[in-house]
């Protein structure tokens, strides 16, 4: 059995009377790609925000990399090697694309105040950042202001930043949406390769082709609860999932 990297137990988040996440449990193993699927409003993004520390849970526990991590602020989670993207992209608009990535390359430098006074304009950091940009196919845009990029490029920038931070786990929130089919393929390769490097991935994706192909296992949420868990093939045949999420299925539109 592979080691568990992230374990979520009875996780809940309520907004007033609304139970956005309501008692969800699952495990994510090392070097695993886990798909987190579910209808719109199922609570997937809220789950991400709970795991990455943006929200504190109403109830439940999260264990990450051997420590109990619920309630830790986002920067502590980042320091533990968790990188993430945002469904609603959040670029540092007035910084260049390259600097956007360089910021993310500094996790270990932000760890202590003294270290954070070192310079960031050095060649080594730059090289690492450019490399990351090349991996996501954004090298040509390195010197443009991030705020001016079209949506598709912003998605890749998000991935590059997540890669720079997450040496253990990366959370991808619909990172493939807004991308052209042809552009999706290389990014799928990229995600597959990250896993080879020993990094786990938690994936929210409505593009079934991507989700089915990439995920080792899939967890399906609906109305804040887990309704299915299993191998991609099993989950796709689960009548509950088809009813709530996939619809008639088989349509080319959902690829």
């Amino acid at each position: 059995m592979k080691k568990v990297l992230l374990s979520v137990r009875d996780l809940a988040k309520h907004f007033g009377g609304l139970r956005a996440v309501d008692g969800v449990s699952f495990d994510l193993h090392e070097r695993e790609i886990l798909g987190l699927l579910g209808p719109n409003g199922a609570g997937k993004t809220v789950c991400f925000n709970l795991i990455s520390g943006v929200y504190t849970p109403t109830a439940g526990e999260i264990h990450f990399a051997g420590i109990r991590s619920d309630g830790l602020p986002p920067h502590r989670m980042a320091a533990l090697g968790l990188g993430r993207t945002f469904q609603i992209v959040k670029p540092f608009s007035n910084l260049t694309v390259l600097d956007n990535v360089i910021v993310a390359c500094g996790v270990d430098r932000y760890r202590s105040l003294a270290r954070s006074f070192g310079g960031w304009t050095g060649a080594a950091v730059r090289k690492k950042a450019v490399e990351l940009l090349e991996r996501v196919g954004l090298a040509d845009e390195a010197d443009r202001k991030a705020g001016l990029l079209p949506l598709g490029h912003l998605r890749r920038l998000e991935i590059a930043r997540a890669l720079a931070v997450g040496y253990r786990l990366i959370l991808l929130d619909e990172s493939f949406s807004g991308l052209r089919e042809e552009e999706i393929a290389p990014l799928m390769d990229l995600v597959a390769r990250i896993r080879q490097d020993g990094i786990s991935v938690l994936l929210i994706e409505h593009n079934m082709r991507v989700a089915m192909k990439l995920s080792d296992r899939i967890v399906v949420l609906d109305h804040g609860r887990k309704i299915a868990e299993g191998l991609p093939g099993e989950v796709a045949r689960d009548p509950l999932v088809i009813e709530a999420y996939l619809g008639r299925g088989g349509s080319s539109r959902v690829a």
Partner: protein
Amino acid sequence: MNAYVVTVATLVAIQSIVACGLNVVVGYAGQISLGHAAFFGIGAYASALLTTKAGLTFWTALPLVIAITGLVGLLLGIPSLRVRDDFLAITTIGINFIVEAVFLYVPFFGGALGIGGIPRVTFFHVKMKGLPYLYLCLAFLALVLLVCRWFTRSWAGLACFALREDETAAASMGISPVRFKLLAFVLGTAMAGLGGALYAHFMRFISAGDFSFPVSVMLLSMVVLGGMGTLWGPTLGAVILVSLPELFRPLLEIRFLIYTLLLLLMIRFQPGGLLGEASLVRRVFSRLMPGKEAPR
């Protein structure tokens, strides 16, 4: 140089130092502050009290002054962790009003009479006044500019930029908002404290009104006019905003109207600041010297 020009230049240098501090808070870290004069005042009062009541010299007092203002900056920076944008602007205005009121109403700070008899700065037994004092202020300004430049090129500076752009995203990149916001506050207020000390020993008496809210407005105007987040912007802003009224001096009653109208026009037509992006200065510069970066 005659004494009048020296006086104006000294005031420009001092206010540049303070404005640079504000630039760290607002320009680099994106925390809008309309209460910077409070920290300017805290520096001035600290230095005045330490030299008049505790009998220290300017030089022995200075490190203490900077430490005190930095510490107060740390404390008063804490609200910025809780509130943002307009809420923060109002909070900082409030801090300015409260600090001014404390200076004015607490007898320890001299109350309505202020503090007088602040000694001149001596340097190897030479009393610094006139030109030498101007040089002293310019030296400190150079130091402050160096610190700013170094800060913008350090990871800490980059962290502040990222926080300014998007806090949630920055935090997810491992940047602690608490630490770096407070860092910017401490750095910015320490610079204000330095400026305050220089001011106190230049004027040689101070009262609460010298650090009232309009002064904060003036400081923010310097930063915005010069170019928020640029290195030289605050200094340029200080030069313009301090010397313009002097130029209009002969206009007597209408000089302040002309001055405000000019400020309005400059902001309206160079909203990114004179040294900011796409500003006239930068465009002219890049036409004259293609390939070279204009100063910022």
